[in-house]
């Protein structure tokens, strides 16, 4: 029992951290918890899927798994910065419970570790953002950067998605 106690005490002493994958949508930075990210890949060919909302770009073959691809900027009506050109985009393959979806991002996503205490669970200025507050887990601060942490499961199970029936 002794070593267990020691370890517990140590955990309390060391500050709890959260590991995020951070990417840009519009001009803001967004993050998702790394345990929900299955992989990051260059966006493969997307097959359009008629009868889905326009923010679902279609389905892709990612290593034999067929995954629907969503454009988060379109989903949240975030304006794209003008004059933006790139050879290709990246896809974050997200997994939340039995839901799977790829999110398109325009720049290489970064990995970032923040202390949990630096994430504000109930930010007051959320109204300024286009995203339904339910989809936001919190706002993280890192140096002078501000990172909006998204709740993937809620995004994947939101009404707009679950009512995909024609």
């Amino acid at each position, binding site marked *: 029992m002794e070593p267990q106690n020691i370890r517990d005490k140590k955990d309390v002493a060391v500050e709890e951290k959260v590991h995020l994958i951070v990417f840009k949508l519009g001009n803001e930075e967004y993050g998702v918890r790394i345990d929900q990210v299955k992989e990051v890949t260059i966006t493969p060919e997307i*097959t*359009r899927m*008629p*009868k889905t909302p326009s923010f679902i770009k279609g*389905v892709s073959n990612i290593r034999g798994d*067929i995954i*629907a691809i969503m454009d988060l900027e379109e989903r949240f009506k975030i304006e794209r910065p003008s004059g933006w050109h790139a050879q290709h985009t990246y896809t974050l393959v997200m997994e939340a419970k039995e839901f*799977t979806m790829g999110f398109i991002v325009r720049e290489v996503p970064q990995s970032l570790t923040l202390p949990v205490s630096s994430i504000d669970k109930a930010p007051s200025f959320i109204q300024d953002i286009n995203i339904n507050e339910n989809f936001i887990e919190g706002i993280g601060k890192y140096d002078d950067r501000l990172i909006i942490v998204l709740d993937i499961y809620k995004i994947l199970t939101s009404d707009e998605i679950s009512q*995909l029936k024609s």
Partner: protein
Amino acid sequence: MKGREQEYREIFIAEALEYYDALSRHISDLEKAPQDEQVLAEIFRLLHNLKANAKAIGFITIADVSHKLETAFGMIRNKELNFSDEVVTVLFDGIDMLGELITSIDSPKEVEPSPALLRNLDIIINSLSDNSAELSKVQKYYNSKNLSLSDLIYIQIKKLDHLLNLVGELIIDRDRIFSISKELDNDDLKNVSAHLYRITEELQYSVMDARLVNVGSLFNKFPRIVRDIAVAESKEINLDIIGQDIQIDRNILQIITDSLLHLMRNAISHGIEKADVRKKAKKSPQGNITLSAQNDRDTVILRLIDDGKGIDQQEVKRAIVQRGFLSADAVNDLRETEVLSYLFEPGFSLAKEVTEVSGRGVGLDVVKNAIDSIGGRIRVDSKKGEGTTFTLFLPTSIAVKGALLCQVEENFYAIPLMHTDSVVALPTAELHEVGDLLVADINSETITIVSLKELFNTDISEYSVRKNDLESDVQNIIIVTYNNRKLGLIVDKLLRQQDIVIKALSRPVNTIEIYAGVTLLGSGKVCLVLDVAAITRYFIARR
């Protein structure tokens, strides 16, 4: 044909061999620890089962030897017999003899138990005296038969399911390699991939074959069932069964079991008339029902035919209007097969009273759902006064399906062959505008024609197509059929027929009704599989 007797025999032998192996093992353990009660109890149990099974199947010699050995071990357990060296030898000999008898069941040469051994066994179980001098030497002979393993194994269907899924994945990769090798134009790679192609094909068929069972394993249950229902309904039924040896995937047979039972109940309680009614109609007093199976390429066709009173089209039409499915005018335009297809609509049942065994709220819609779920098809044909036939078109195997590939805009789509009727190239001039829809007269049938491009690009409730909307002078149309109803789908291009492995779409996009799943083509391209049932349902409801 592999009948039930043969199946029992195989099971008996396989299990008996297992018992024999376990007995040989345990008796060696017992020699080292003669007091081990657990081992004794286990030996006793194995011999007990062997005896009971052998008696049941009629292998009297095996039953007899097992019984003697069981008695001996029972006495050892009760300390009525010492586990002495002499006794051990006799018991070893006895178990070897059992092995000999079991392995020779299927050999032409009949093996008789050695009389000396039988006498020895009798001596140890009957004479409570310890006079082992009477025991005679039994000649021992070892040969490979004593060591042989069973030719039959049992395997969980789950393991076969897994194997088939893996083969499905393998086929997708194989097709990919095949098309890459064509692009690269390297002879070595081409040879290897051609070989890979053949091997995976053989592998696929072997795995599918391992899952096949005889339709008879289900059909053979029906004589008894029919008799019972007939008795409950006070009807006389003559049942003919045809094609028991047709083979089909075990899971498919499992899924349609309840459906077939339900159709059979309907046939007897609603189809076949009572003897006096039949006599008046100049029919044999006995009702005749035929249950048949036949192969048609990748499809198994099951038919349930009765010579009962048939389905009254007028009555069905009345019910269609009464239940608000269609207006009285619209009903009159329906073709005969279309009228009958309403029987499969949820909640549609013609039975006026619920008899003892049928009805109970479960209608043909449930039967239809079960058959849809495995990609099958059902149709009903009936003539009033002459009888009714239900025909089930079932895939032989679940995972791999034939499909027609077509192109609409930049995308490829697959339509399972199970649902395709024919392909026509029709001059646009021959299409007619009826309301918001197009119809065409194809082989003297009026068929609703749907432009997939419009369907894909407009909200389904706003779907409306005029002839002017169509670009070319000739339209490529795939006639699909679902529930006896036909629908024409306009596509940009017809590609080819191909075997595909349908994967389910993952959540959350699995709820979009017009897709039955997705498949990967050899090129790695994603190809959506259209759900003909959903599309047809929508347009039929609309008309």
